[in-house]
C-alpha cells in the first residue's frame, strides 16, 4: 500500500467574520510524515477540519493525489482514503474497544441491507474478516488484551491508541493525527513516536498536528508552522526550528513542550 499526496492551496476560513485560517498552502508528500505546528488558536485544528470536510472552505482548494477534495462531505472524504483522530478523543464510551475499531471498517463492507438482514454467508464472512483485521491491528498497537473492555474505561494513552487503531482500520491513504501526544508523559510520547514511524513505514501518508516540537521534529520529514491563521515557516525540522518567526511565536508560550 502506498500513501496519497495531499495538496492544500490558499485555503481560508472565517467564523462570523473572524478569520480563523487565512490563506494557507502546503503539501504533504506521499508516504511521508508532515508536521503541522503552531501555538494554540493558530488554526491547526480548523485546517484539519477543512481537509476532512467538517468545515466548508471559504476560499482555496484541497486535493488528494491531484483530485479535488474540497467540497466533499466528511464521509466522502473518508471514502477517498482520509482517516483522522480527534484532539479531544472521540470514542464511543459504552462500546468495547473492538466495536470502536470495527466502526473503522465501515467502508470495507460491500453487502447491501437485504443480504445483511438475511445473514447470507457472504455477510458473515465479511464480518469475520473485518473482525480478524481489527484484532490484528489491536495486536500491532499492543492493546489486544483490551479488546472487550468498554472504551470509556481505558486510560488516556490507551484511548489514543484505540483512536489510531480505528483510523487505521479504514485502511487510509492519508492519516491525520490531531495532537495525539496531548496529555501524555515522556514514555508514552516515545512510544507514540515509534508508532508514527511504524505507520509511516507501512506507506501511509501522515499529517501530524502537534504542540510538542520535539516529537514533531523526531518523526517529521517536513514541518509547516502556523500562527494566527497564517503560515509563518515551512521546511525540514531543522530549518523550521531555526526560523526566527517560529521562535518568536513560541517564545514565552512554550509551557508544555
Amino acid at each position, binding site marked *: 500500500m502506498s500513501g496519497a499526496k495531499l495538496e492544500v492551496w490558499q485555503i481560508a476560513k472565517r467564523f462570523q467574520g473572524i478569520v480563523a485560517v487565512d490563506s494557507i498552502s502546503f503539501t504533504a508528500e506521499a508516504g511521508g510524515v508532515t508536521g503541522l505546528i503552531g501555538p494554540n488558536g493558530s488554526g491547526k485544528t480548523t485546517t484539519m477540519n477543512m481537509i*476532512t*470536510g*467538517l468545515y466548508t472552505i471559504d476560499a482555496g482548494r484541497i486535493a488528494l493525489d491531484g483530485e479535488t477534495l474540497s467540497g466533499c*462531505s*466528511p*464521509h466522502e472524504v*473518508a*471514502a477517498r482514503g482520509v*482517516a*483522522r483522530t*480527534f484532539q*479531544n478523543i*472521540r*470514542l*464511543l*464510551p*459504552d*462500546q468495547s474497544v473492538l*466495536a470502536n475499531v*470495527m*466502526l*473503522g*471498517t*465501515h*467502508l470495507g*463492507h460491500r453487502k447491501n*441491507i437485504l443480504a*445483511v*438482514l438475511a*445473514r447470507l454467508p457472504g*455477510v458473515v464472512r465479511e*464480518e469475520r474478516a*473485518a473482525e480478524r483485521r481489527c484484532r490484528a491491528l489491536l495486536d500491532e498497537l499492543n492493546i489486544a488484551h483490551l479488546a472487550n473492555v*468498554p472504551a*470509556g*474505561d481505558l486510560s488516556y494513552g490507551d484511548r489514543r491508541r484505540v483512536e489510531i487503531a*480505528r483510523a487505521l482500520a*479504514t485502511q487510509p491513504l492519508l492519516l491525520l493525527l490531531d495532537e495525539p501526544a496531548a496529555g501524555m508523559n515522556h514514555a508514552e510520547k516515545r512510544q507514540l513516536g515509534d508508532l508514527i514511524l511504524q505507520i509511516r513505514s507501512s506507506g501511509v501518508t501522515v499529517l501530524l498536528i502537534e504542540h510538542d516540537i520535539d516529537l514533531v521534529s523526531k518523526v517529521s520529514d517536513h514541518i509547516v508552522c502556523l500562527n494566527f491563521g497564517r503560515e509563518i515557516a515551512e521546511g525540514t525540522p531543522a530549518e523550521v526550528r531555526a526560523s526566527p518567526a517560529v521562535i518568536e511565536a513560541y517564545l514565552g508560550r512554550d509551557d508544555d513542550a
Partner: protein
Amino acid sequence: MSAGFSQFFASYSNIIDLCLLNSLIAYGLFLALSANMFSLATGGFMALGAYCSVYCTMELGWPFAPAVLAGALLAAAGAALIGAPVLRLRGDYFMLATFAFTEVIRVIALNWDSVTGGAIGIVNIPRYTETWHLALAVVVMVYVVFTLRRSYFGRAIAAIKQDDVVAQSMGVNVFAHRLSLFVASGFVCGAAGALAAHLNFFVGPGDFGLLRSVDALIYPILGGVNSLAGPIVGAIFTTLLPEALRFSNQLREILMGALVVAIVLYLPGGAMSVFKLRRRRPQTPGGAKLAPATKQAQS
C-alpha cells in the same frame, strides 16, 4: 381448561392485540430514536397507513395484505418526502417539524370528507387484523433490529447516535442512514396504522394526533432505547398500566403519572437498564452541557 382459556382470551384479546400493536409502533420509533430522531411524525404516518389501507380494502376491494403494504408504502413515501428537508434540523427543531407534519395530516383528514369522512371518520371497517398478524409483525421487527444491530449498519447507527462527527469521519453517510431509518420508521408506523384500522371497525382523525405520537415515543424511551427488548417492555407496560390501575378510578391519571415519574427517576436509562448494572463512570469534565445528548444514558 380450554373453556377457561377461551374466556380469558375473550376478556383480554383486545389488550393482547393492543400490546402487540403498540410494540410494533414502539419498534417503529426505536428505529428513529436509534439515530437520535425524536420524531413526533408517528401520528401522521399511522394516519397515512390507516386511511390508505382502508381506502384499498373498502373502496378498491383489495385483499388485506396488499392494502397494508400500500398503507405502509404511502407512509414511507411521506417520510421520504419530509425527511430530506427535516433531517437538517437539530433536536427540538426536528421534533416540532415532525409534529407540524402530524398536525397537517390531521387537519387534512378532518377536511377531506370524501375520503376520510372528516371528524366522523370511517365506520364499519371489516375486521381483518388477527392477533397472529400483529404477533408476526412484532417478531419480524425483533429479528430485523436484532440482525441490524450486529451488522456494520448497526455499528454505523450506534456511532451516529452517540457522535455523528465520528461516524462521518469513519465514512458513514450520516444523512443517508438517518433518512433510511426515518423512512423505515414511517413504513413500520404506516403498517401499524393499517393494522390498527382493521382491528376495531373504525378510524377517525382523533386517533392520530399529538397524544398518539407522544405515547409512541414513550414506549421505547420508558423501556430503554439501548436494549432490544426495551420497546416491547415499554409498550406492554404502558398499555397494561391504565388497565391495571382502573380500580383506582379517578386517581388513575395521578397514579399513572407518578409511576412513570418514579421509573424515569430510578431507571433513567429506561426499564431495561436494570439489567445493565454497570458502575457509572465519572463524566469527562467540560463540554458536559453541549456534549451530544445521548452521552452516558445508562446508570
